[in-house]
């Protein structure tokens, strides 16, 4: 039996109106890979922030190696041997790997010495990384390696990882897991936060499950199923989406030879993209973030104009039409970024319903808005998609991320589109709501709507898509039937094949 490295005893942290952590106790043993599971808002980030010294607990105590541990700020936590890799990277794109790492150190060694150390660590742990490369040229997986190596240089005894695999291809996930297992074998404890239950079952020895700020269960994930873990998180059982064999009709949405210029020097340009989605079909587009998903969405929504024939709907050329005309033609779109793009944060849900539903739902006549109709449509979205809100007049920014996502999805899906394009339909939504959104997408396809789903969640695409194509550095692979594919092949489609050609 290994000894406890870090013990949390009754940690409580309250924010105005919500208790983020309510008497949370857990222990992490040296060399253990410990999973922290919970829905959005269950209190995972608050707990991790307390361990890392970013947030001070209201009550409760932590002990590290049996000694009281009260980090006042992250510097103290790092000195005590706690490293953290955040979900969102804090790297400067214009600087090199070594320069970025030096910026995060108290007393950085000379560049040459630091580069040597980086190479040494990267070789030891199987994380290939050239310290002289500019971060702007690195893939998301490589950027994450920068963050991990930055932590490893401090010789941590506990490494906290927040959703580390959301930006990685399956092959990169395998590399990461090999590294983490090696670290664990050397005695470094790992606190691993993720939504991906299969990963947790493959990697972790123990799991602590949080719900509503409280620890509801501690278990060995290897002895549980992904489903039982999900039910512990949600606190109830739910149905997974099921795909009936839909009748696939004539081509509805067709993209042919689409090219765009990158908006900024670190943006992605789309190169000769062609795809077709038929009535009643769901086409899934997978890919690691930053490979052209946002650009593809903008070209389809009309925010970026293209050649008229590059995008066609029912054979009609719509590539040069602005967003409202495209909606009128029957193409509805849901962007990934909810606050600020799909919805205006400070406006009410009613106003946000008008944002896109005006044209198709006839909410205004000759420009004059019928607020009565807008409110009726908003209430329909709220009711049909189980949006938890005090009412339709609440500002969009007051809703939790998952609830706003349900609202945005409902707003687009209830407009009876002919074709629907969604980027990340269930991002940040809890498991039960995600299943219900997926079910609704499948039902909509059953009604003959052509659906294009862009997602970084491959399990999601396996669940709902009929065909799959991979987006890599602005190029799209030919689409293949989902049933013919396994994880291995998808991984190759996402990473290898196109990447070499572009280099």
């Amino acid at each position, binding site marked *: 039996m290994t000894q406890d490295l870090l013990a949390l005893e009754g940690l409580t942290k309250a924010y105005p109106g919500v208790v983020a952590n309510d008497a949370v106790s857990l222990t992490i043993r040296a060399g253990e890979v410990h999973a922290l599971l919970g829905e959005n808002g269950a209190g995972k980030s608050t707990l991790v922030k307390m361990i890392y010294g970013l947030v*001070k607990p209201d009550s409760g105590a932590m002990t590290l190696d049996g000694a009281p541990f009260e980090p006042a700020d992250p510097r103290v936590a790092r000195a005590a041997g706690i490293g953290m890799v955040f979900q969102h990277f804090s790297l400067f794109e214009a600087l090199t790997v070594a320069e970025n790492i030096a910026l995060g150190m108290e007393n950085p060694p000379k560049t040459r010495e630091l580069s040597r150390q980086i190479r040494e660590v990267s070789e030891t742990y199987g994380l290939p990384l050239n310290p002289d490369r500019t971060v702007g040229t690195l893939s998301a997986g490589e950027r994450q390696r920068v963050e991990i190596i930055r932590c490893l240089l401090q010789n941590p005894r506990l490494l906290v990882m927040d959703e580390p695999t959301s930006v990685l291809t399956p092959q990169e996930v395998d590399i990461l897991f090999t590294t983490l297992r090696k670290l664990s074998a050397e005695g470094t404890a790992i606190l691993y936060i993720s939504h991906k239950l299969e990963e947790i079952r493959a990697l972790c020895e123990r799991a602590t499950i949080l719900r509503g700020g409280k620890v509801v269960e501690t278990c060995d994930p290897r002895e549980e199923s992904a489903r039982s873990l999900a039910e512990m998180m949600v606190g109830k059982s739910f149905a997974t989406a099921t795909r009936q064999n839909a009748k696939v009709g004539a081509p509805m949405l067709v993209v042919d030879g689409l090219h765009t210029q990158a908006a900024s020097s670190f943006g992605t340009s789309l190169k000769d993209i062609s795809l077709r989605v038929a009535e009643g079909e769901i086409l899934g587009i997978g890919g690691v973030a930053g490979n052209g998903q946002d650009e593809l969405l903008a070209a389809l929504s009309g925010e970026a104009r293209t050649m008229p024939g590059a995008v066609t709907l029912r054979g009609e050329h719509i590539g040069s039409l602005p*967003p409202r005309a495209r909606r009128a033609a029957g193409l509805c779109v849901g962007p990934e970024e909810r606050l600020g*793009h799909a919805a205006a944060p*400070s406006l009410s849900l009613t106003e946000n319903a008008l944002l896109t539903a005006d044209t198709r739902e006839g909410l*205004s006549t000759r*420009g*004059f*808005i019928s607020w009565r109709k807008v409110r009726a449509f908003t209430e329909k979205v709220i009711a049909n998609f189980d949006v938890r809100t005090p009412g339709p007049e609440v500002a969009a920014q007051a809703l939790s991320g998952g609830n706003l996502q349900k609202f945005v999805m409902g707003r687009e899906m209830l407009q009876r589109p002919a074709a629907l394009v969604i980027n990340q339909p269930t991002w940040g939504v809890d498991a039960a709501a995600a299943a219900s959104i997926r079910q609704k997408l499948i039902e909509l396809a059953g009604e003959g709507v052509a659906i294009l789903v862009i997602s970084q969640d491959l399990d999601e695409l396996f669940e709902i898509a009929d065909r799959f194509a991979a987006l890599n550095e602005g190029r799209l692979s030919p689409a293949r039937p989902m049933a013919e594919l396994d994880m291995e092949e998808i991984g190759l489609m996402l990473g290898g094949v196109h990447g070499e050609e572009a280099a």
Partner: protein
Amino acid sequence: MIALEKRPNPSAFWGYLTPLLAVVATMIAGGLMFAALGKDPFQSLKLIFWDPIFGEFAFYYRGQLLIKAGPLILIAIGLSLGFRAGIWNIGAEGQYVMGAIFGAAVGLALYPAETRWIFPLMVVFGAIGGFVWAMIPAILKTKFNTNEILVSLLLVYVAEQFLAKMAFGALRNPDGQGFPGSRNLAQWSSSSNSEIIAGTGIHYGVVAATIAVLLAAILLSRHRIGFDIRIMGVAPKAAAFSGVNPQRMVFFCLGISGALAGLAGLFEVTGPSGQITDSFNVGYGFTAIIVAFLGRLNPIGILFAGLLIGLTYIGGDAAQAGIGLPGAAIQAFQGMLLFFLLAFDLLTQFRIRWARATA
């Protein structure tokens, strides 16, 4: 230690209260300033805020109030549309001047014909003059991505130079014995923008301001264009996703605010001012910016804010004449109002928490 915490929903309560708080704070700070200038603060404030409406000479001042407030409201309504969309027209003063010159020039070209079509024609050209002047920053912004704040502001000074040129040159009264300034438009019946009801100060500019308030209120609350203006201001990316064309919005907002400022200039030059001189403009175009913000960019709010600022104008004049308060002190007083308003504005978006200092 004081900490600010963002409100999830902007507070409607503070939204209504902050203009009142700003007025009170301005009175206190302004009173201190007047005291520092050696004047009795209470008497000064009474002279500015009370006497013009309720004092001995109120019969004169009350009419003046609408004459001052009319152009301020008309200009501020136009500016508020752009400000809501994040398009900053700071050059309304220049558009006001150009509107006056355009409209007056058209009228003077037809002098001394006597027909009732001349005044409406001048009104149209007044609007066109302001519109054209506002198109310069609009075109430069959309084609070359210049900053409309700088361009519109600097064009004020160009317009003022042009005004001097006109007052001393092309538009000078041929019968004026060489004095600068145009013929008196208020005294020529074809172009006179006289009081509609004697003694009230209501002229066509005041009527236009009232109509502008109503139309703007309807536009913002009930019309898709008003809605587009609002989303473009609060979430430009969401507006683009919705289908708002930002370039068209720049032309629309600058065009409307320019046209309304031009109208205000025309009504002024045919009425209260009466003629084009090199200094007929008295800064309404700049003061209207304060009016727009004091009114919370809300048409009804702007109506009240215009009346309040109009009051400080005439009250300020009275205080200058009565107790010798310097004109600059009145301007500083108006500036304080904007300052306090913006400061208190914080309370609508944030709440203040008193927290103990942490290590």
